[in-house]
């Protein structure tokens, strides 16, 4: 801290222009570094931007994932049921429109449409973002679940039905657990994509992690540290998520010795 105070806030502008003596190089680099840490994290409690932003990002991601899985489960099941039995024609038609529209337009545009047009009177932006990202993710999750259901041999459905389970019960007890296991890697992919996609939340002035870095950058006039910090935090989140899914996968594979 002492160094930072002494050097003042101009040190970074000087960097590169000064030609320090050989012996001094190391100490100047260190001084610049600690100065940067001070400016980017400590001054005015700027670290709080990152932690608050991360909190917003994680909250949006978590609830959007939940919403996406619910939508995806319903839509995917309807699509697979139609494919197998040719029933639910109308529902399948509606789901088809949903998939086409959602997958055919950028998520930023969807986010803004929901914020500025559909829910223009909304005061709390986080639920708006959850809704937008959840609806968006649901379309992709639906296709993942549909392919998962279709990957299960029809004999499983027949075995379940022959025991007296109805269609939904067989789906729930027999097909879904197997389908879920098959699509877990694809689902994990989708969740990682979703986590990173929430970085466009700044478009509706939500202070998520990316926006937080942006705010700090605009205060320090130095993009290097805020952006790398933000990138590193995303990376850690994704690694944690990936490892978690790996663990779950291993547990689910128990039945395949």
């Amino acid at each position: 801290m002492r160094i930072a105070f002494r050097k003042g806030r101009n040190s970074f502008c000087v960097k590169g222009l000064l030609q320090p003596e050989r012996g001094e190089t190391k100490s100047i680099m260190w001084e610049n570094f600690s100065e940067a840490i001070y400016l980017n994290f400590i001054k005015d409690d700027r670290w709080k931007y990152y932690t608050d932003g991360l909190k917003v990002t994680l909250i949006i991601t978590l609830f959007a994932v939940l919403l996406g899985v619910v939508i995806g489960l319903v839509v995917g099941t309807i699509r697979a049921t139609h494919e197998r039995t040719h029933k639910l024609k109308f529902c399948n038609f509606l789901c088809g429109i949903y998939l086409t529209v959602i997958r055919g337009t950028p998520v930023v545009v969807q986010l803004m449409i929901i914020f500025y047009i559909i829910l223009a009177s909304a005061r709390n932006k986080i639920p708006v973002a959850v809704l937008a990202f959840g609806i968006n993710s649901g379309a992709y999750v639906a296709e993942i679940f549909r392919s998962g259901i279709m990957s299960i041999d029809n004999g499983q459905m027949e075995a379940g039905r022959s025991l007296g389970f109805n269609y939904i019960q067989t789906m729930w007890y027999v097909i879904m657990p197997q389908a879920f296991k098959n699509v877990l890697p694809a689902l994990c992919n989708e969740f990682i994509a979703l986590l990173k996609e929430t970085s466009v939340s700044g478009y509706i002035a939500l202070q998520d992690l990316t926006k937080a870095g942006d705010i700090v950058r605009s205060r320090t006039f130095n993009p290097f540290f805020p952006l790398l910090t933000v990138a590193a935090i995303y990376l850690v989140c994704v690694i944690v998520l990936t490892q978690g899914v790996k663990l779950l996968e291993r547990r689910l594979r128990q039945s395949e010795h």
Partner: protein
Amino acid sequence: MSIEEGKPLIQVKGLGKAFGKTQVLKDISVDIHKGDVVFVVGPSGSGKSTFLRCLNRLEEPTEGNIYFEGVDILDKGTDIDRHRQKMGMVFQSFNLFPHMTILKNLTIAPMKLQKKSREEAEGAAMELLARVGLADRAEAYPSQLSGGQKQRIAIVRALCMKPDVMLFDEPTSALDPEMVGEVLNVMRDLARDKMTMVVVTHEMGFAREIATRVMFMDGGNFVEEAPPEEFFGNPKNDRLKSFLSKVL
């Protein structure tokens, strides 16, 4: 549900099934009584499996009626799921649930559908497992079993629902020859216990041994049916004669 004495357990009347324009089953009428062990044989593509699958509506018949325990199960108002609980089915490809242990495979339907307690369901399952000689595999997963063991488990899974009739769809066709015997033994025990059975199979020797009636299907209908001695010893229909000369 008790049935009146002498009334058939399953009564098929004018059953027909078409896939698009292809008529697979034509005007089939059959009575199956309690304790019957009916074997359905015939050339491949003759409609045997389709007939069997129509009995529990895994295949939706396009015409006719099927009365099971006095109820028309083809009627739109019939709750087919409830009646299926009383009709066990065994598939050529076993179709065990690979994500569950053997014990879970056996108990899930009784627990969820008949609201049995875990203890009750597991007790009944273990008893049946012991009878087919697989009590030590209760905690295994299907992928750890041989084909013959899987099929025995599949039979037990159906039996756990205490069905009134068992439908077998080529139960030994997917098995290695040395595993056929163990499955037939289980079926033999069932027949001895007076279980009503409808069996689609190519095991002629087995049909001769335990069937009470053998029916020959050709071209979507039964062209001959008789007790096994007569069926195999003194066939009348020409097509049956030529079929038997090829397979025996």
